[in-house]
């Protein structure tokens, strides 16, 4: 990194299945207003904007043009990213790079999705190669099913252990006023009794489909210190890609090569040797309950095959040794283009001490990850003191 960058403000909408009261630009503006308003900032202080969502999801091309007036971007540098589910974290990483480069002092990063307005499964099918996979694939859930069954075969993780991840997420969500699905009384038995979607994944093993938006402000050191007493400093970022085809890297479904590469890189850059001991909180992009357990292993929170034990022992509960997704995570809230930015925003709120009822006490170091269809990972380490 050239110079340091820090997140000084974060805001998001209250995520729901369907926002019928606002258009997409109005919904995005709501997140921007909440973000800027949390620190009494105004659009005039923003030097550049980065915006991201899922291509084709709402049937709209050039989405950044549609919302330029809503986000105060007209006449300013405006960068669009469209790299799948991980795009929100890519927005944060790009904003950090724009600030760290010295080109801009204050950058607004935005992620959004109004999933109720499109045909998500049809749009996801266009990811598949036209000649090889489109005719024989089963949308996102079928792919996650194949991934989860690989993980079960390799690690012996049980349906009960996966169900505990959903229970943790939906209960944590009750402490987060922005979360979509809040289930204070959800049980393992309820998850295990829910409808089978793509074996071994049941309905309650999967993330929902949400309408929502999220925004963060990234600032250079002197500006950051003016804007907030405790910025969330970007200690390390990494982006890692894999190849397109599910079958090309047989082991990557359970043990994502891109997640291992990105997390190892940020640990190294931030001087983290034992992530379970040194991280105070993690906000990971878990598309399904089983995926979170697999991610514990790739993120080196435990040894290979021990992801299930970690949830059995309560290590990742709100009051555990390393809380994972105190916000309720993706299993509770999933406006796709915003989802990975919500991970970064929630990690920043934890470091800034602004997470409200789901605040983990004394967070100094936080990890956030973004995930896109087994093929992309972003990883970000935020710290309470400047690196």
């Amino acid at each position, binding site marked *: 990194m050239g110079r340091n960058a820090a997140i000084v403000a974060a805001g998001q909408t209250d995520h729901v299945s369907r926002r*019928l*009261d606002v258009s997409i630009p109005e919904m995005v503006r709501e997140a921007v207003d909440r973000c800027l308003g949390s620190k009494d900032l105004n659009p005039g202080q923003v030097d550049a904007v980065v915006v991201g969502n899922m291509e084709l999801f709402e*049937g709209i091309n050039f989405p950044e043009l549609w919302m330029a007036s809503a986000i105060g971007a007209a006449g300013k540098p405006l960068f669009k990213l469209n790299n799948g589910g991980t795009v929100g974290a890519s927005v944060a990483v790009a904003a950090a790079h724009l600030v760290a480069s010295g080109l801009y002092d204050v950058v607004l990063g935005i992620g959004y999705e109004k999933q109720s307005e499109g045909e998500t*499964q049809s749009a996801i099918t266009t990811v598949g190669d*036209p*000649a*090889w*996979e489109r*005719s*024989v*694939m*089963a*949308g996102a*859930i*079928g792919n996650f*099913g*194949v991934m*989860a*069954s*690989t993980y079960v*075969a390799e690690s012996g993780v049980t349906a009960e252990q996966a169900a505990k991840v959903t229970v943790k997420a939906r209960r944590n969500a009750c402490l987060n006023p922005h979360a979509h699905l809040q289930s204070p009384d959800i049980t393992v038995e309820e998850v295990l009794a829910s409808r*089978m*979607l*793509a*074996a*071994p*994944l049941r309905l309650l093993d999967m993330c929902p489909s949400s309408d929502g938006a999220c925004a963060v402000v990234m600032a250079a050191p002197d500006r950051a210190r003016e804007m907030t007493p405790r910025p969330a400093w970007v200690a390390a970022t990494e982006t890692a890609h894999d*190849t397109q*085809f*599910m*079958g*090309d*890297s*047989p082991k990557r*479904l359970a043990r994502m090569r891109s997640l291992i590469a990105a997390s190892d890189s940020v640990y190294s850059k931030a001087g983290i040797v034992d992530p379970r001991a040194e991280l105070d909180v993690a906000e990971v992009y878990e598309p399904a309950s089983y995926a979170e357990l697999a991610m514990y292993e790739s993120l080196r929170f435990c040894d290979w095959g021990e992801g299930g034990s970690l949830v059995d022992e309560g290590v990742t509960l709100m009051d555990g040794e390393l809380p994972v997704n105190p916000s309720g995570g993706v299993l509770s809230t999933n406006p796709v283009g915003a989802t990975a930015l919500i991970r970064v925003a929630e990690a920043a709120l934890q470091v800034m001490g602004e997470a409200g009822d789901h605040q983990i006490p004394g967070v100094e170091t936080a990890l956030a990850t973004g995930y896109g269809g087994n093929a992309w990972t972003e990883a970000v380490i935020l710290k309470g003191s400047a690196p």
Partner: protein
Amino acid sequence: MSEPTVLHQKINLPYRYTAGDFHKAFLYGLADRRIVGSRCPACLTVAVPARPFCPECSAHSGETMDMKPQGTLETWSTATIRGVTRTYGLIRIGGADTLMLHIVDAEPSALEVGMELVPRWSPEPVPEITAIAAFVPA
């Protein structure tokens, strides 16, 4: 203004697909009831379907090769999409280093990791992945 206004529209999105030499070899091989892969001249990775660049090291692929028309089942999921229940498997064709996604036509309870499968060819010899209707237990 109390009721929300929601417009319902639909876009048709026609497209064309230019296969290139390696994908063409795979697709026309299917029409001939052959499964065609490619071997990397640099790291010797064998990939199915045949493709122009090595999935492991990105080198230009060398020759295409006919694979033994047999596969082993590595992982699968059974999903019901829009009322249709199908099993999707990742299959290792002829001992290749990569797996290929396709439909497996068998009772899910009869499936095991590593079991041998063979293609069930469609009656129509078309240069499309659907020339293989499904993989079935050998």
